[in-house]
């Protein structure tokens, strides 16, 4: 992550949209930009750090109350605007979220509900026929990722240090599982789903594509063009599909495939 008020997510959002102005009416931590992908209209959305954000527990790029509801609105408005459109705009989620917000006020006012609204926003957009693609440009962590990005039809990731997917930060994971941080790191090397790095995540079969591009390369025009092409390829691959079937039961998630197949066999009795 770069310094002060910026993030990989903010940098890639700017690069992919040729530094277009974000739409007004959103908190500074949620940038929504209407631009193009290929020659198709696209709404780009990123959650970014804002050191002045109203809620102090969500100033480092976390998805908090304001971010959750703003994401929901950005998605809901796109679906409504394109309701009768023949070609619904693409949704691109640019993801660099360190986590959800951790705080008392957040829990009291229903952070889980804000994140549910955000996740539902993406689900509804996808199921209404908007192709939804996520670019994992940095951290894709836990509830932050569930609210912003995980519901895309296709997940595309950059590579290298700084690109991570996980359910919980190492310190908290160590405490909850009653292990040392070293113990968590050791297990992360041996157990694929416990790893934080994107190469391990790829082995779970959840990625559509992993690009050999570092998250720091957002000022490299060639890298940006390759990312654009990969996102456009993902949109082409989506075609008319609206569900998550492309990533279910792939890679090392063999137990997922077995459970689903067996359930389908015994469901009707």
């Amino acid at each position: 992550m770069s310094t002060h008020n910026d993030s990989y997510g903010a940098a890639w959002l700017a690069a992919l949209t040729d530094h277009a102005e974000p739409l007004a009416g959103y908190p500074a931590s949620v940038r929504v930009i209407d631009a193009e992908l290929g020659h198709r209209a696209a709404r780009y959305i990123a959650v970014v750090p804002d050191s002045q954000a109203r809620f102090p527990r969500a100033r480092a790029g976390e998805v908090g109350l304001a971010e959750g509801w703003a994401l929901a609105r950005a998605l809901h408005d796109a679906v409504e605007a394109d309701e009768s459109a023949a070609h619904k705009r693409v949704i691109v989620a640019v993801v660099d979220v360190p986590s959800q917000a951790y705080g008392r006020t957040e829990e009291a006012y229903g952070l889980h509900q804000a994140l549910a609204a955000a996740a539902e926003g993406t689900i509804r957009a996808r199921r209404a026929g908007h192709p939804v693609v996520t670019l994992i440009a940095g951290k894709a962590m836990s509830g932050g990722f569930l609210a912003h990005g995980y519901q895309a039809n296709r997940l595309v990731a950059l590579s290298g240090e700084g690109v991570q997917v996980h359910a919980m930060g190492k310190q908290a994971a160590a405490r909850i599982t009653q292990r040392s941080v070293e113990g968590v790191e050791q297990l992360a090397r041996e157990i694929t789903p416990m790893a934080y790095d994107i190469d391990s995540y790829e082995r779970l079969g959840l990625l559509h594509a992993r690009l050999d591009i570092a998250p720091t390369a957002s000022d490299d025009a060639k890298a940006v063009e390759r990312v654009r092409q990969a996102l456009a390829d993902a949109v082409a691959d989506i075609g008319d599909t609206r569900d998550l079937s492309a990533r279910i039961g792939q890679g090392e998630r063999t137990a997922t495939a077995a459970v689903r197949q067996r359930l389908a066999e015994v469901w009707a009795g």
Partner: protein
Amino acid sequence: MTDVAALLQRQSFVELPARSRCQHLLDDADQRELLGPFERLTSPWLPKQNIVTQSDDGVVIMRGTLGDTKVVIAAVEPAFQGGSMGEVGGAKIAGALACALADAENGDPVVPILLLETGGVRLQEANCGLAAIAEIHDMIVALREHGPVIGVITGPVGCFGGMSIAAGLCSELIVTREARLGLNGPQVIEQEAGVDEFDSRDRPMIWSLLGGEQRVATGLAEALVGDDVAAIRDLLARHVTASPKPLARTTDIARFEALLETVAPTERATARTTRDAFAQTTGAA
């Protein structure tokens, strides 16, 4: 019947394990567990960490009827690994919901009931749990187009993490006073934000903010019920026949954003201030 007699005859739901919960809620005839323990579908990841598996991976899927309505119950077992969602248990829930969706799309709806005693992702299977939970979210939203998807949180674990988002997506949420519903578990908030922000040992504070009574008072859950098998069953029987309708908790964005405007972010939230704010902006009392 006197109150004492009623009390003596009351059967606790909270004390029941997941399989018994399903059996008590469904009509006696035609109960059928899917992928039960004899199928031996266990976690492939826990043995590598020297953790004993359970032959149902802590999730029970049971089909049957409730009154005249076809239902499928997915129950998380609170006694196994904190009710956590691993790859197999997560796939059982997501897969059962996918089957229910296929039936609903063919005009033969099966109403899902989710018994959510869960701390969320099983950290020993982290990314597999997170992926399965995303798939569960997708299915709940899709199924709501066809009818109710009912969540029940009774205790003792409560409902946290990615599964609290699943609860937030349910069309009706039934809770007891013992239930807790929140995104982050108290220990995690304390670890990440410090004990001044959230003291995980302060049980009165935790229940006053995350408890079932408060969640109903603020409109984040629909119904409060006692720890009583018969009462929960009666309430579910009324809810399974509900028609599909937009869910204010996820779609009434403007009202929630207006609510946030009234919050003083640096003041310590209490049960009272939270209820007042909700009452002013969302009509909940």
